[in-house]
C-alpha cells in the first residue's frame, strides 16, 4: 500500500504515490508498447511523477539489444506521444530502458530476466518490486504466469517485502468458461490483490468524472432514479473499420470487443449506488452489484431486444469504403457482428422499469462516445399542452470522446412578447474550461498500478459477471445458426432493426 511505514509521505495516502519498481513489459516490442505504453511512461517521466527508483525492461522475442530497444522506444514516442520528444530529457529517460530477449515458453529466458533484474535493480535503488505488464495475446497468459512463478519472480501478496503486480489486457476470455480459465490460471500464480485487469476506458478523464459528477454534486443524485429518469442511452461509435485488427475482430465481434467490457463498465458507473468509501474494493463491490442486477436476456428474447449487424460498403467522409466481408483477413461469409444495439434493464429499486439502450459499431458516421440520461417529461400543463409539439425533455449527456464534457438540455423562453419555449444546451467542455491537456488513460492507469490502487481495474468477479450476462447472448446467437446478418451502410448510424428496438417504445436514438 502507498505509504508503508514512511513518515515522510502520509500526505500522499489519498493521492497517487507510485512506489519504486521495475516495470517489465512482456510483448515489449509490440504495437501496444510502441503506441501506448512507452509514450505513456515517457510522459509520466516528463511530468516528474515516476518514482525516483524506477526502470523499464522490455521482454519479447525480437532481436533487440538495450540500445536498439531504446531506438524502438524513441521512434514510438516520437510518433505517438502526446508531447513531442525532448532530446535533452530523452538522454536521461533512455537510461532507464532495458531489454531482455526471450521466448515465452523458454524457462531459461525467464531465468535470464530474473538475473537481469537482480543485476539492474540495486543501481536504481529498486527493492525487488515488480510490475509485469502482459501486452501479449491471451493465449500466452498461462505460459508467462507459470514461468514467472517457476523462476521465483512472484512474491507472496500481503507481506511487507517486495511486491509483485501483474497487468492483464483485455480480452479476458471470449465467453464465461474461457474467462474463468484465464482467471484460474492467473490465480494459480497471483493473489487477486496482485492482478490489475486493465480497461483503458476507465482511465479516461470523463469516465472518472461521471463518478465525481454523480456523487460530488447534490443536484443530480436525488433525480438519478426511476422516478425522474425516462431512459438512458449509451453510445460508443467508431468511425473506422476493422483495419489491421481484422484477425482479432473476426474472432471477437462488437459484443465481445466493446459491450462486455467498456460499455458494461460505463453502465456500471452510471447505474451504481453511492459507495460508502473510495476504497477500491468498495467501489468495485458496488459496480459488481449492478452487473448482478442486469436482467438476463435469453432465448427468443435475444432477437427481441438485441440487434447485431455488419457494415456494408458505403462512404466515410465521402470516400468509398468496403463492406466488412470485403475487408482484408475477413472471411467472405463472416457472421461476425460489427454493430450491436440492445435494450436492457437493471432490475433494482433505483432503476425499476428504466430501459438502458446501448449501441456500438464500426464505420458509423463519427467517433463519438456518450452516456445520455433522458429525464421524464414535465406534466402536460402550461407549456406542454399540445400533444403534437411536446416540450423537449431534459437530457444530461456525458461526452466521453471526443470533445469531453457534459451538456444539459433545458427549456427556455424565446425572447419576445409571446411565450415560446425553445430547447437550449448548457455545455461544459473540459478543453475550454480547464484549458489543460488531459493525460492519456494509460498514464493514469500505470501510475495507479505503481501506487497499488485497483479502483479503476476489473476484479475477477466483475469480469465473470459481465461474461455471464453476455454469454447468454452469445449462446442464443450460436443456437440460431450461422446466417447473414443485417447490413448497414458504412457511414450511417446502423441498421433499421436498431431503430425499431427503440422506436417501438416511442423513443429514438440521439443524434450525435
Amino acid at each position, binding site marked *: 500500500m502507498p505509504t508503508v511505514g514512511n513518515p515522510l509521505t502520509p500526505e500522499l495516502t489519498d493521492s497517487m504515490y507510485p512506489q519504486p519498481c521495475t516495470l517489465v513489459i512482456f510483448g515489449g516490442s509490440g504495437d501496444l508498447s510502441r503506441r501506448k505504453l512507452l509514450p505513456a511512461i515517457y510522459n509520466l517521466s516528463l511530468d516528474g511523477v515516476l518514482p525516483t527508483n524506477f526502470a523499464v525492461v522490455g521482454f519479447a522475442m525480437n532481436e533487440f539489444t538495450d540500445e536498439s530497444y531504446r531506438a524502438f522506444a524513441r521512434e514510438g514516442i516520437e510518433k505517438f506521444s502526446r508531447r513531442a520528444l525532448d532530446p535533452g530529457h530523452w538522454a536521461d529517460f533512455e537510461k532507464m530502458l532495458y531489454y531482455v530477449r526471450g521466448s515465452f515458453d523458454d524457462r531459461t529466458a525467464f531465468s535470464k530476466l530474473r538475473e537481469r533484474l537482480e543485476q539492474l535493480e540495486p543501481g*536504481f535503488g529498486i527493492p525487488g518490486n515488480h510490475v509485469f505488464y502482459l501486452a501479449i495475446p491471451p493465449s500466452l497468459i498461462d505460459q508467462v504466469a507459470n514461468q514467472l512463478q517457476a523462476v521465483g519472480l512472484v512474491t507472496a501478496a500481503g507481506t511487507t517485502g517486495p511486491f509483485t503486480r501483474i497487468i492483464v489486457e483485455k480480452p479476458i476470455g471470449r465467453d464465461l468458461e474461457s474467462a474463468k480459465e484465464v482467471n484460474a490460471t492467473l490465480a494459480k500464480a497471483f493473489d487477486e490483490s496482485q492482478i490489475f485487469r486493465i480497461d483503458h476506458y476507465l482511465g479516461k478523464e470523463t469516465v472518472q468524472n461521471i463518478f465525481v459528477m454523480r456523487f460530488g454534486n447534490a443536484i443530480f443524485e436525488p433525480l438519478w432514479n426511476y422516478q425522474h429518469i425516462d431512459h438512458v442511452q449509451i453510445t460508443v461509435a467508431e468511425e473506422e473499420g476493422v483495419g489491421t485488427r481484422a484477425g482479432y475482430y473476426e474472432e471477437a465481434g462488437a459484443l465481445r470487443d466493446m459491450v462486455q467490457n467498456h460499455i458494461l463498465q460505463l453502465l456500471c458507473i452510471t447505474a451504481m449506488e453511492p459507495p460508502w468509501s473510495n476504497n477500491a474494493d468498495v467501489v468495485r463491490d458496488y459496480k459488481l452489484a449492478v452487473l448482478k442486477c442486469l436482467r438476463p436476456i435469453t432465448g427468443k428474447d435475444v432477437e427481441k431486444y438485441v440487434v447485431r449487424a455488419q457494415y456494408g460498403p458505403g462512404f466515410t467522409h465521402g470516400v468509398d469504403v468496403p463492406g466488412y466481408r470485403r475487408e482484408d483477413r475477413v472471411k467472405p461469409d463472416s457472421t461476425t457482428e460489427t454493430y450491436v444495439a440492445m435494450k436492457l434493464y437493471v432490475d433494482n429499486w433505483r432503476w425499476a422499469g428504466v430501459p438502458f439502450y446501448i449501441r456500438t459499431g464500426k464505420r458509423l458516421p463519427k467517433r463519438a462516445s456518450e452516456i445520455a440520461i433522458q429525464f421524464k417529461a414535465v406534466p402536460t400543463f402550461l407549456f406542454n399542452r399540445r400533444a403534437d409539439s411536446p416540450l423537449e425533455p431534459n437530457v444530461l449527456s456525458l461526452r466521453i470522446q471526443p470533445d469531453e464534457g457534459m451538456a444539459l438540455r433545458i427549456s427556455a423562453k424565446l425572447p419576445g412578447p409571446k411565450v415560446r419555449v425553445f430547447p437550449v444546451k448548457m455545455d461544459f467542455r473540459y478543453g475550454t474550461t480547464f484549458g489543460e491537456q488531459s493525460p492519456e488513460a494509460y498514464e493514469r492507469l500505470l501510475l495507479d498500478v505503481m501506487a497499488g490502487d485497483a479502483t479503476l481495474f476489473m476484479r475477477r468477479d466483475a469480469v465473470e459477471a459481465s461474461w455471464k450476462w453476455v454469454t447468454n447472448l452469445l449462446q442464443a446467437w450460436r443456437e440460431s445458426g450461422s446466417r447473414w446478418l443485417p447490413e448497414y451502410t458504412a457511414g450511417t448510424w446502423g441498421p433499421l432493426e436498431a431503430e425499431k428496438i427503440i422506436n417501438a417504445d416511442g423513443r429514438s436514438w440521439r443524434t450525435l
Partner: protein
Amino acid sequence: MSQHILQPITSAPARPVNVADIDRELLEMWKETDAQPGKQTAITRACMSNLVVYSDTLDEAAKINDELAVVAQHHPARVLHLIGETYTGTAKIQAQVSAFCSFLGSPRTHVCSEQITLMAAGGAKQRLPSVVRSLLIGDLPTALWWVPHDMPPPAGGEIFTELTAMSDQIIYESQGWLEPVRGVVTMASWAANEKPNQVLADLEWRRLKTWRRVISQALDPVVLPGALEAITEVRLEHGPHALAKTWQLVGWLAAKLGWQPEGGKVAPGEQITWRFRSGTGPVQILIRRLHEGEPKVQSGSITWKIGGQSHTNKIVRLGPGRLGLIGEDPNSPPRLQVVPSLGRPELVARQLPDLGRDDLFRETLQFSRTMAEALLH
C-alpha cells in the same frame, strides 16, 4: 494525433474605462469580438475563478502583466489586477479592460479570458477592495495572488486584510524576503489566525515538491530500512534568496520525523546550524548560502548511522530540470528525477485549482516558526 494545445494568439488591447462602467465595457468588448466581419472562429469566454492580483508599483505590475496571460491560458479566470501606487496627485482609481485569447488545437476555436486593471493614484489604494467586491463573479472561487516579494504579505497591512477577507485562496512567494527569519515568524503567526478553510500557498513550497519526493523515496523504509530513524546530519546548500525555501524543506523533514529543535546558530548571510533531537539521538542540520546561483536548493546530503557505520546519500542538480540522487555505490549512476520546469505563472495556474487546505504546508509553516524561535532566543 490530435493535439489539444493552448497557444497564446492575441490580447485585445487594453482600453481605458470608467470604474463604474467596467462590466458594460466588458460586454461591449465581447460583442465586438464576436461581431468581427468575416470571423470564422468560435470564441468561448471561459472563467474558472476570480483571480485578484495585487502589485505594489507600476514596475512590479509591468513585470507581472505578461505572466497573467500565461496564467489565464492554463486557468481561464476573470483577472483583476490591482496596482497599489501609480503616481501622486488626486486620489482616484483608473481602470482598463482587456482580453487574452488562446486557441485550442484548431485556430478556429478560441478560449478567452478577461482582465480588469485597476490603478490607484494619490493614496487611493484603500479604495481598491470596494471596486473588487463589485467586480467579483459570484459562485466562483476567488484567489488572491499577492505579488510584492520583499516582505511577507501581512506586512501589506489593511489592503491585504481586506483582500484576504474576500478570498478563498492566498498565493504568495517567500523568495526574496529581506528578512526571511522574521518573515517565517510573521507568516506563521498570521496563518495561525486566518480563516480555517482558506487555502494558503507559498509558491516556494510548491517548488519543493520534487525535493520532498526525492528525499522521501531515497530513504523510504522499503529501500533503506531504518535510515529515516537513524539520520544524524542533513546539509543543504542554496542559492541567494532561497533561504525561506530551504528553511521549509528542513521544517518539513524535522516535523515529519518528530525532531525537536534544541538550539542553533546564525552566521548572517553565510549559514545556519540547528541542533535537533530525534528519537534516537542528536541531529545536526546545516544550511549554507552560496554566493551565486539560482534561488534554489542546490544540493544536499543526508547522513545516517546504522550499526556504528555512517552512510550518506547526496542529492545534486544535474542541470536544468534534473535532480540526481547519488547513493553510496560509486559504480551506480545517479538516479534521476525530473523537476518540471514551471515558471511562476504556470505554478500559479497549477495552484489555483487546488482548493483543498494544504495541512502539510501549514504544519511545516508552524514548525518553521518553532525553528526560527529556537534561533531568535
